[in-house]
């Protein structure tokens, strides 16, 4: 059978999400960010909320998120996305407001904003990309870097006696009464991608239903920062990261 017999609107099963525009993403080949961007765009489109969604992008690799997904965005100062989102949501309670943050932004410089927004139960969704490294600045240690993992600022591997242990911030956030959803997912297989999409959808629905703060952590790979090819990086992530950051719901009210 040739192409013409198979392709058409009625046989279409997967295509670029409608809210993702034609701007080429700046991410490295194989980066998890692109996959999660698509999920965010698909969910907003499926919910029909493109006109009432405001995204808050971070400082880090996702600093250009606003270029790729056709909704209104604000790009926050490093770590402050939850504070920015707090104000947007409080001042516009009928909008869907979410942040999209990396591990440095959310779990290092912005720890206070993250915890306090969640503790207040701000009606926002937080998409948290945890790839255990600082990608944009060239591969330095993140708060979530695994023990013994090598980065440019722990070239002999992270030593927990000196550098502390990987910060399980979503486990911490799950303890807060303001949080209605704290879940950890990944996007390294098609099945994992579908599950993550369901949880992002739930988080966005929670935000609109004013149920409190929802956090979706996506354990991700950073093949460039890890100095691996994309396939090896995903495999390494599955073998090493998921034991420290196991997928599953930490809280789902």
């Amino acid at each position, binding site marked *: 059978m040739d192409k013409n017999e198979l392709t058409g609107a009625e046989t279409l099963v997967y295509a670029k999400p409608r809210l993702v525009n034609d701007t080429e993403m700046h991410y490295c080949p194989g980066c998890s960010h692109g996959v999660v961007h698509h999920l965010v765009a698909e969910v907003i489109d499926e919910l029909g909320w*493109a*006109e*009432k*969604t*405001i995204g*808050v*992008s971070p400082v880090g690799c996702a*600093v*250009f998120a*606003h*270029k790729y997904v*056709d*909704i*209104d*965005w*604000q*790009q*926050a*100062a490093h770590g*402050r996305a939850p*504070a*920015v*989102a*707090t*104000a*947007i949501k*409080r*001042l*516009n309670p009928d*909008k869907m407001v979410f942040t999209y943050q990396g591990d440095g932004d959310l779990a290092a410089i912005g720890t*206070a*904003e993250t915890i*306090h927004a969640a503790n207040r139960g701000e009606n926002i969704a937080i998409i948290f990309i945890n790839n255990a490294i600082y990608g944009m600045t060239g591969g330095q240690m993140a708060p979530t870097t695994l023990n013994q993992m090598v980065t440019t600022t722990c070239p002999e591997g992270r030593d927990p006696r000196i550098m502390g242990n990987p910060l399980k911030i979503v486990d911490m956030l799950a303890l807060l009464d303001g949080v209605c959803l704290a879940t950890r997912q990944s996007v390294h297989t098609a099945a994992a991608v579908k599950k993550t999409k369901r949880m992002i959808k739930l988080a966005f629905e929670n935000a609109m239903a004013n149920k409190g703060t929802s956090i979706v952590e996506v354990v991700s790979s950073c093949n460039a920062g890890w100095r691996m090819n994309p396939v090896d990086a995903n495999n390494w992530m599955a073998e090493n990261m998921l034991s420290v950051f196991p997928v599953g719901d930490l809280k789902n009210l």
Partner: protein
Amino acid sequence: MSEEISLMKGNEAIAHAAVRYGADGYFGYPITPQSEIIETLMELAPWKTTGMIVMQAESELAAINMVYGGAGCGKAVMTSSSSTGMSLKMEGISYIAAGELPCLLVNVMRGGPGLGTIQPSQSDYFQTVKGGGHGDYRLITLAPYSVQEMADFVALGFDLAFKYRTPSMILTDGVIGQMMEKVRLPEFKRRRSEEEIRKQCPWATLGRTPDRAPNFLTTLEMDSSLMEQRNIHLQAKYKEIQQNEVRYQEVLCDDADYLLVAFGSAARICLKTVDLARAEGLKVGLLRPITLWPFPSEILEKYASKVKGMLTVELNAGQMVEDVRLAVNGKMPVEHYGRLGGIVPTPDHVLEALKKLI
């Protein structure tokens, strides 16, 4: 302006005026000597009446970034702090200026540097009018010298901020913030509807609509040639503000041999010094910059050829004096008198300093 006269602190007047202006949100963190602003707002509970949101943030960093978020939606939002807290906010203020967002900032200054003292000071002049945060930006800076002006400058600050899409700062200190005087509060104004905001601020991130492309607010531009264009645009706007928005007050300047130049609380003190000096037959006037940026350089230059000398009086080691000297450009001597670290000079102290100059 309402008919009723109230007696209140400058800090309280700012809170009342913000609610009456129809502000949409206040985000702050307590610090002396300005905590009455958030305390009064919490007492007024405007979310029950006008719908204005009042939030105690977890830090000054969070507060200024909440302002960024709210201002990015075209809302009339504000924050307040005092010196050391304002230092923490400076990064956010640079972002707000770069993002061309309107908002109102209030700094009720205390003595520094460091944690310093909670007593009144004017030592954040440089921080406010020369930068503070990084990059080439400017803050419209209003210096009230009475409780009435504290109330009035809320509306003025917001209006200028929206007119030019740039942050405004009310730069005041513990004297004006803590003192009580008579004040006539402005009439209540309705908060703008979302429709009105969308019309006034087409750039606001309120959710894309089919008739426009998505709005995004970012201050990052990796292409230096585009970043230079952005800067040129900002500078053109600042030039326009300098041409249109200079404000000052002249007190008995016409026949003056000597001019005191002072803003805010120091200007109040100098008002009395002028009286004391005139009683002794000294022809002394007061020129009070109301906008510290844009600075009233032209009027100072005009007086430079008429008076014998100028004395700036500041609650700092000599900051505004640099702008006065630039304005008169060496045509005549400009001296400085100031007290530091939270000490407020009295009118007699100023008179003594003035006599040394004469």
